[in-house]
């Protein structure tokens, strides 16, 4: 069984993001980039499925500029077998990405597509669900435990009130949540081996997909700054201030 793992190159989660004063967006020049943390979890899960003998081949795919090759090499170093870069400079939004991924799914015929539940840059949380809709497949979002057996999946999901267990047939789109697994680190030997694993490059035109963005960003601003740093000496003062000054209790 093939597993497709879409991965996204995003600003590293440790970076303190800066908004450009001209309102055009966030400053990404010379900023550390990494694989979206939720996608790392997806790669790890796919690799574990292969180690268990559930999957035979893991294909990593990324959509974006040629710099995304770095992210794909990381996926290969973590255990993916081959990679596909869908190269474009276009401003990609989830609907376009879902359509690009559908084109890859139609060609590669994986039984499972597993990806992060959201990217930490746009915080959209849409691509997996959109892909499942376009494919007419089952979707299990925010997965925290996955079991595949006899062509069926049993997935434990994080939901608003706690946990939910669902059963689906394959093929299936799964989006990963934080506690699904703890990703391994790429070892140096695996990083070296990854350089020799196949990486194919294609583009939206070749896949017959129109990636023109549907949403226009008019401006990007910083949120109003919150005044903080107030201190109290002890519990008595805290309670007095919460009652008398803030009036919240």
């Amino acid at each position, binding site marked *: 069984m093939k597993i497709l793992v879409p991965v996204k190159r995003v600003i590293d989660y440790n970076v303190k*993001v800066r*908004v450009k004063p001209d309102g055009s967006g*966030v400053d990404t020049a010379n900023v550390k980039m990494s694989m979206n943390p939720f996608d790392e979890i997806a790669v790890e899960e796919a690799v574990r499925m292969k180690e268990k003998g559930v999957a035979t081949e893991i294909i990593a795919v990324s959509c974006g500029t040629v710099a995304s090759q770095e992210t794909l090499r990381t996926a290969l170093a973590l255990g993916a077998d081959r990679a596909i870069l869908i190269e474009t400079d276009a401003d990609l*939004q*989830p*609907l376009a990405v*879902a359509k690009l991924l559908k084109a890859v799914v139609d060609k590669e015929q994986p039984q499972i597509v597993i990806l992060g*539940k*959201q990217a*930490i*840059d*746009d*915080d*959209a949380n*849409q691509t*997996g*669900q*959109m892909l*499942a*809709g376009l494919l007419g497949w*089952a*979707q299990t*979002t*925010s997965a*925290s435990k996955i079991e595949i057996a006899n062509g069926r999946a*049993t997935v434990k999901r*994080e*939901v*608003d009130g*706690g*946990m*939910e*267990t*669902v*059963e689906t*047939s394959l093929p299936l789109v799964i989006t990963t949540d*934080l506690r699904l697994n703890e990703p391994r680190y790429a070892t140096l030997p695996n990083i070296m081996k990854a350089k020799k694993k196949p990486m194919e490059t294609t583009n939206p035109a070749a896949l017959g997909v129109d990636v023109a963005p*549907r*949403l*226009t*960003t*008019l*401006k*990007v*601003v910083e*949120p109003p700054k919150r*005044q*903080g*740093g*107030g*201190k*109290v000496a*002890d*519990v008595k003062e*805290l*309670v007095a*201030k919460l009652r008398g000054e*803030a009036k*919240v*209790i």
Partner: protein
Amino acid sequence: MPTLILADHDNASLKPATLNAITAAQQIGGDLHVLVAGANAGPAAQAAAQVQGVAKVLHAEAAYLAAPVAENVAATIVALVKAGGYSHVLAAATGFGKSVAPRVAALLDVAQVSEIISVVSADTFVRPIYAGAAFATVQSKDAVKVITVRATGFDAAPATGGTAAIETIAAAPDTGLTKVTGQELTKLDRPELTSARIVISGGRGLGSGENFKMLEALAEKLNAAIGASRAAVDAGYVPNDYQVGQTGKIVAPDLYIAIGISGAIQHLAGMKDSKVIVAINKDPDAPIFQIADYGLVGDLFELVPQLTAELG
């Protein structure tokens, strides 16, 4: 053209976030139709009909909607939109709404706008990006706008005073793709995290699930909800639905008390719109103190019991 709102409910009543989504819909304009899809969902439909500003409630009833799955709910919404001429489809940005809305958007071949915090006009909205480090104003030119609404960005519409008609409609057939076979829902004998007026949140500093009982005593006194940082959930101190943060719950209570929480950006993303923030931490350099209105440096194992006692 009217707006369709997907109600988040448990068949017996509406989830509070639905009321905030209804306010967002009112700001967009147009008649409001609320879809209640469920099994034995009459009470939830009644509740929706009483919300001020709702023109019509569409009640789709089917046994397979008792524990609804996104595939089936999305199918029902898509059928309604294709038949009924809706310009907007809204859902609260709960886990449920977020699993359904994008699938609906893709099936309608339109973009989806996630977690709006304000409405600028019928086609322009503001939403947070980069864990709330920036606000983006986005405009959609699609014929149907599919939107999820961050509850903390809007007041709740009044739950009584409305007199909408309830119309029974057919649910889309069971897609048969996914079935819910089990649920482990946290039993709550205190206010729910996303709608509580006061939230007490524990972090890694608590050290164990057992120590969260100390927070429960404080929560009792204040009739507060209990939340947690990602670190506390990852460590297994509390269940996952307690997590407040960029990828967990977003809350904006009147009072947020962060105990043993360092204040990582990803946690702040989930609570920085709280009216008043209190922080208790033994590390005077913890980032949480930078946004706290009242910071108390010290050992939480001494200070929390003292605070509980001081509250009488």
